[in-house]
């Protein structure tokens, strides 16, 4: 079993764990955390692909590595935006939950402007 296979299994498991967390965690912050876990699994998958593509004197294919770095930046921005929204939601409503307490129909005051 090669390095790539070990970490491929590890990445797939991290994706699975992240998915599970995203599905069942009731708290938005835990969902954000689970998304980060899921994302890290995806990135390691790119790393495995890069490692398998070692050639031409490179120990690892540089293209997937570059994609991962771009991906990490995007994932961090997403986390920051989500956390900001969540904290503001807490500030405005006093609660931090994604559950729709009321059905869409009875939502009181859709804006019009």
């Amino acid at each position, binding site marked *: 079993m090669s390095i790539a296979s070990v970490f491929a299994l590890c990445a797939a498991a991290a994706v699975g764990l992240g998915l599970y967390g995203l599905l069942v965690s009731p708290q938005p912050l835990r969902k954000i955390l689970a998304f980060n876990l899921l*994302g890290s699994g995806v990135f390691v998958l790119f790393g495995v692909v890069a490692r398998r593509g070692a050639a031409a004197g490179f120990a690892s294919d540089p293209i997937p590595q570059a994609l991962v770095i771009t991906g990490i930046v995007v994932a961090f921005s997403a986390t920051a935006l989500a956390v900001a929204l969540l904290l503001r939601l807490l500030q405005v409503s006093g609660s931090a939950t994604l559950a729709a307490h009321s059905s869409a129909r009875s939502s009181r005051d859709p804006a019009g*402007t």
Partner: protein
Amino acid sequence: MPDPAPALDAVTAGAFLLVLAIVVPVAGLLAAFAAGGRWVERIALTTLPLGLAIAVAIAIALWRTDAPIVYLLGAWAPPLGVALRADGLSALMMAITAVVICGVGIFACADFRIPAGATEARAPFAFWILLLAIWAALNMVFVAGDLFTLYVALELLTFAAVPLVSLDGRAETLQAALRYLIFALLGSAFYLVGSALLYGAYGTLDIVLLSHQLRAQPATLVAAALMTVGLLAKTALFPLHLWLPPAHAGAPAACSAVLSALVVKGSFFIVVRLWFGVMPGLPGSAAAQLLAALGAAAIVLGSIVALRQERLKLLVAYSTLAQIGYLFLMFPLALDPATARLASGGALAGGILQAISHATAKAAMFMSAGLLYAALGHDRISGLAGVARALPLSVLAFALGGMALIGPPGSGAYLAKTLLLQAADDGGQWWWTVVIQAGGMFTAGYWLLVLVHTLARGDASAALRARVSRLQEAAALALALCSLLLGLFPWDAYLAIPAGAAASNPLTLKALSSLLWPIVGGAVLATLLGRSGLPPARLRVENLLVAVIRPVRRGVLVLSGTIERLDGALRQWPVAAISLLVIAMLLGAAMQAAQSLD
């Protein structure tokens, strides 16, 4: 119709226009961010005509060359570099995006003013910058030739769309934005996994190179299923629509218009690129039927729940849900039974036309709904009596926009419907004919429901709280008219339209009856299902009718109440997320089955 197999590494004439289409809005947003204050709006408004001109120039260039426009970024050829490619689909989507963005920009001038005395205000600053960002992201989505560049473009789109949802800062909209963001992130993670697998299998992410090499192997099938479902989550196809109604209904009108008309089309367009461009031979019949079945369910559920809304903006948002379903009906119709491949023929043209006419019509509808809200201070459908007299132009924009969705002869939706029906006939898939016709009736149903209320007698002018800007009404009307007249555009330069489909005389009896039936059916549906009841009857005949209808209506209301509860259940987070995984598995299994049949 341009050659479907574009050249790989030859830069074609006029290709720098593709770069400009992305660079101009990006430069605009950077400059607006740096300048701040009142310059934000000025810079954005200057960018609008520039971008529109570029989109038109691309459409003309494509018409002249009759082959896809290709540009190699940094002069690096794929697979190492990234290519931009514009075919007929891209050019059309870019053009319609430019039109809608310009319309929304004109509309938004009045709404996003900096208050007197302030040098800069939050909402205008964010709105104009995000509007330009959405434009850049969409243009990138339409021309990017590389799956990872598409991912970055998709994220750009999400990052620009989410803050628009919560621009007014109320708790509900913040919650809607957060739901939207997290669900969209789940979708993009799935898309990214798929790209990793495809790179691992083929060593490239270039769309054309991939389409040449693609074989059915485990990595390809898993990637196809995960990427598709990730994009469906971002498109809010039933049952993955948990985020759409609150987000689109809660946002300010100009934002709702952009979100509903354009943003969901971005991820939809990537599904089309993926299925028709990268892997036309892979999905097979079962997977295509599955997508269209979800679309049909979206039409039924979205329309029925729309009919049961008390508020206009939510009705329009649920109508978007139904119309998104309509877009996915083309997948099985485009499948060539002889080769089991997706063919870029009439069905694809119909689907894209539907997307285009929905873009303009829905933008107009959200704008006029916003105008009514601003003028009345509420948007309860039952409180709209007399509005048609008080605000004739706003109501007219709504009426024309809704009419354009139903598809009278000459409109874009009419042409789209003709193409889809023809493809269904040719393929012997009569069940989709039924769905397409029913979809028209449902659309007419909620359209009529609103119109009847606005036309009812009442004194709305006394209740008007604010004056409505003529410019805003004009912007909404222009977009609605645009959608109504789209059928007259020379589409065959860009889309593969079978001969005869476009040529039918719009004034024949058959063509007119195609408008009449949806409206009659819609009237029945609105009477039976409409929550906001009907205005009080004054004629004896009406009273008689109501007496006959009442028991039937009671029965149907029970059914539609059940459907509404189903919608509520599906929009619970765990249920929606589980549906996402289930659909991924069904798609994977369907594709696997299609491959083992061969």
